[in-house]
């Protein structure tokens, strides 16, 4: 009785004008209308129409790419929440970080979640890369996606590095001192690059603001675009790497 009531109310909802204006395809009874439902949806259209069962096995990927992606989502969500309390200014930044830890409700949870997810993302991205490398996932037709992935690895490291300065504590200050001095060892371009990155010769207000803008706007924006390309290539352009039968036999 309850079941039929649920079914009836769903049926009723589906026949409303609002529902039909959003999902224009009608019920997914045939393969064609199922496919059209996917194609017509902004969020679902990235997904492949068909997948090989083999590539869905845990051992095929250990879902490492998905792990990286969800960590990125966690970092975006927690990062936006942290931005509501953080001022990228000296010495306000350090006080805000302290406030987040000791005063703001759930502040310590969000900050630690952001920190730990950041560390975990570096680990996950490297693990994902090693896994793809040892499976030969960089080989044709996946070379381009491998290069995009290397770009995403570098972005992850830059995001990690720029985020490190933001608490404005001793650890942050000296890590960025050492890091930016490593940049200045580069011949010819090194010192101008350090100057541009810090907005001066010392790590001060300008450097904090620059790292903040890079961390919260520039690098995530580039990452979103590259992640889009990366996922598109995985889903639509060759799919996941699954070894052909004859390769498997050769190995045995």
């Amino acid at each position: 009785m309850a079941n039929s009531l649920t079914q009836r109310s769903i049926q009723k909802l589906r026949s409303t004008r609002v529902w039909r204006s959003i999902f224009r395809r009608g019920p997914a009874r045939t393969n064609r209308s199922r496919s059209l439902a996917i194609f017509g949806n902004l969020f679902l259209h990235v997904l492949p129409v068909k997948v090989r069962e083999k590539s869905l096995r845990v051992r095929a990927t250990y879902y490492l790419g998905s792990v990286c992606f969800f960590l990125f989502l966690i970092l975006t969500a927690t990062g936006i929440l942290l931005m509501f309390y953080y001022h990228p200014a000296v010495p306000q930044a350090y006080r805000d970080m302290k406030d987040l830890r000791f005063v703001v409700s759930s502040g310590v949870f969000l900050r630690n979640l952001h920190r730990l997810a950041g560390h975990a993302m570096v680990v996950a991205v490297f693990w994902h890369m090693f896994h793809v490398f040892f499976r030969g996932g960089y080989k044709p037709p996946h070379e381009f996606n491998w290069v995009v992935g290397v770009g995403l690895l570098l972005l992850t490291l830059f995001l990690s590095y720029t985020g490190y300065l933001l608490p404005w504590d001793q650890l942050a200050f000296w890590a960025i001192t050492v890091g930016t001095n490593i940049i200045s060892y580069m011949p010819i371009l090194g010192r101008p690059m350090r100057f541009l990155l810090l907005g001066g010769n010392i790590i001060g207000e300008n450097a904090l603001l620059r790292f903040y803008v890079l961390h919260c706007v520039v690098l995530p924006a580039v990452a979103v675009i590259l992640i889009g390309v990366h996922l598109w290539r995985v889903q639509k352009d060759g799919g996941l790497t699954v070894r052909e039968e004859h390769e498997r036999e050769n190995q045995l």
Partner: protein
Amino acid sequence: MPESDTATSVAGRRAENGGGETDRRDFLNGIAAAALGVTGLGTVVTITKYLSPNVLFEPPTSFRIGPPDDYPVNSVTYIADQQVYVVRTAMGFVAESAICTHLGCITQWKPELDQIACPCHGSRFNRDGTVAQGPAPRPLSHFGIRLTPDGNLLVDRLEILPQTQILKV
């Protein structure tokens, strides 16, 4: 295929006008590409200049450190505000940078070792700034130091002196 259809492709247009000549469309495309290139280059140059600050609110590069008598002979004095060692020997004065030449950490004078030590990666420097051990590639920089007419020592960070130069007082 009718003869007139050839002009719809780039190769077709080339074939039509005899190969060598640049037609109007190619010419205009070339100008548009060049204009875009110039604009793009200008944008890159302008943004780089914009991001490079013209005025810096950083500590002054030259500063007074008091009269020479404040510093006993055979002493190393650390001036924390400016991150400089004032080293006085029997010969005279040297002003040494306290910034490690390896990766920029602030070093510390260790009287019990008679050495300057870096906490980050273990570099050690002798009293005269030369490297005693560790990864530091160069000796500590010697800054310009001179006596002002009113009898104060003046250190200038922008002036790097040769290692052998000493201010005799």
